């Protein structure tokens, strides 16, 4: 995937030592901004995207021509109000929307990196993104916000840079990827690897795309983002444009058709190798282990105000895992609030129109902004 003209890119010249041991430099970090940075430069919010997100948080994504992934939450007068705040979001490294990733050319071989790309971590992602603060001349962000993998980046960011954010909002996430999380990610990776077109990651040079494998990965993952109840209410056993079962393996049921559709649109916008790299980064995320078993130490140097949010029907990053973050913060007397939002929409709740969530997010931000 080439860098497209609608993508703003910052070239990071400062060498970045990755957790895997390699050092990268002069690499691109693609980003987008919304709203205006005020004179005091105290109204900036850094948003971190989830596994399949990108820097195009709201408005029309210029590449996909669809609504940005967090259009419900971010925009004029919305929870994260672009009339008030200056929003920055970067494509994670390892991603496929302009930031340094496996679809880039390896200068040594003049070929696409593919699986020669270094394995990156959540830590590497935030260490790349801290450069955005210098670029914009921001000493301290008003807030860092993210859901799912975005929430993991939020936690890692404040742990690495304790005085770089005033407020910290991890949403529907965890401090350590669970066995179940890793299992689902591995299922996705194996689906991609099982596609003959994947070609050990060298598909672009061979002019193929492992779209079947990537679509299956997306379908499996998509199920984990929804709740059983939500699926049942939306689809139940409804049939897809037919009056009766066809006694075959076509998509008889609406849920089958829906998943196939989700898989097919995903492959148009996402790179299979990026999917491998980013899911790996999530699996490697273990802030507890990073802190020798004591999560509290990750936050002991920060005075930031935390607001942790979970959703009742999220079984991928359930309330208890979010609460563990709250417990670790309370153990060191940190300033932390917590709300579990009632929603049937599963893990995806943070991306959807869930009024209680959007209200809590807005109130927390706006009230905190007024505080000295």
């Amino acid at each position: 995937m080439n860098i497209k003209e609608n993508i703003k890119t910052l070239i990071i010249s400062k060498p970045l030592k990755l957790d895997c041991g390699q050092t990268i430099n002069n690499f691109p970090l693609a980003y987008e901004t919304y709203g205006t940075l005020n004179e005091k430069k105290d109204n900036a919010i850094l948003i971190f995207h989830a596994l399949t997100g990108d820097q195009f948080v709201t408005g029309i994504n210029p590449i996909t021509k669809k609504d940005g992934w967090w259009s419900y939450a971010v925009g004029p007068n919305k929870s994260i109000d672009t009339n008030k705040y200056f929003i920055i979001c970067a494509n994670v490294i390892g991603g496929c929307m302009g930031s340094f990733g496996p679809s880039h050319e390896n200068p040594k071989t003049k070929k696409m990196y593919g699986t020669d790309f270094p394995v990156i971590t959540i830590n590497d992602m935030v260490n790349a993104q801290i450069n955005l603060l210098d670029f914009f001349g921001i000493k301290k962000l008003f807030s860092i916000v993210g859901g799912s993998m975005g929430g993991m980046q939020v936690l890692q960011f404040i742990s690495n840079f304790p005085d770089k954010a005033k407020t910290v909002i991890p949403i529907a996430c965890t401090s350590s990827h669970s066995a179940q999380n890793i299992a689902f990610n591995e299922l996705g990776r194996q689906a991609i690897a099982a596609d003959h077109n994947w070609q050990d990651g060298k598909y672009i040079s061979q002019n193929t795309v492992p779209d079947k494998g990537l679509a299956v990965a997306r379908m499996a993952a998509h199920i984990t983002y929804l709740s059983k109840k939500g699926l049942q209410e939306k689809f139940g056993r409804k049939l897809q444009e037919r009056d009766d079962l066809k006694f075959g393996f076509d998509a008889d049921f609406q849920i089958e058709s829906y998943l196939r559709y989700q898989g097919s649109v995903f492959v148009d916008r996402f790179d299979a190798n990026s999917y491998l790299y980013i899911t790996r980064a999530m699996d490697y995320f273990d802030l507890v282990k990073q802190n020798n078993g004591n999560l509290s130490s990750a936050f002991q140097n920060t005075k930031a105000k935390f607001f942790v949010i979970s959703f009742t029907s999220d079984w991928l990053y359930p309330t208890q895992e979010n609460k563990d973050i709250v417990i670790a913060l309370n153990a060191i007397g940190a300033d932390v609030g917590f709300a579990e939002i009632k929603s049937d929409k599963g893990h995806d709740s943070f991306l959807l129109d869930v009024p209680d969530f959007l209200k809590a997010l807005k109130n927390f931000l706006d009230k905190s902004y007024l505080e000295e």
Partner: protein
Amino acid sequence: MKPEFKIISDLIDKNSHVLDVGCGDGILMQFLIKEKKVNIRGIEISKTKVQNCIAKGLTIIEGNAEEDLRQFPDKSFDYVILSQTLQAFLDPEKVINELLRIGKQAVVTIPNFGYWKIRLHLLLKGTMPVTRTLPDEWYNTPNIHLCTIKDFVFFSKEKNFKLSKSIALKNNKPSYIKDTNLNMKNLSSNLGIFLIER
């Protein structure tokens, strides 16, 4: 605002670190921030009330005090407040122990079931008392461990909690409860407010 809030505020030092357990809509929290510049946070089980607190800019943790107090380290607050909530817990003794573990002092207020109007209600009407401080019917009340001021004083003695201040509230007027006037206060007051230490 509940009349007891002013009395609670008087018991609390300026700029202290406070936890309000079962903080409801955060009205007491706001009052204490204004009056005493406290660093305060609340725990609340009701999702609606949690939202209301967030809307007021208060630091609030959604949770169940009976389970979620254990996450706080020993003596992490100067005061832990439990305002008219003790009677709703499954195990009030355990909760008080937790309050005194995480707080240097605890402020506990209880609706007094020994109040003469309540006694009279049961005596004359023969049905479970419903009053302003105890507005629920027997079948929908969250209050499963109601007690009187006298019960609470006896309970504290038996469990070795030190009552550093015991205040009775009668028609919004406070007065001290002593061993010598305990029977009288138990009859005339609708609310007991206690500052407790271990």
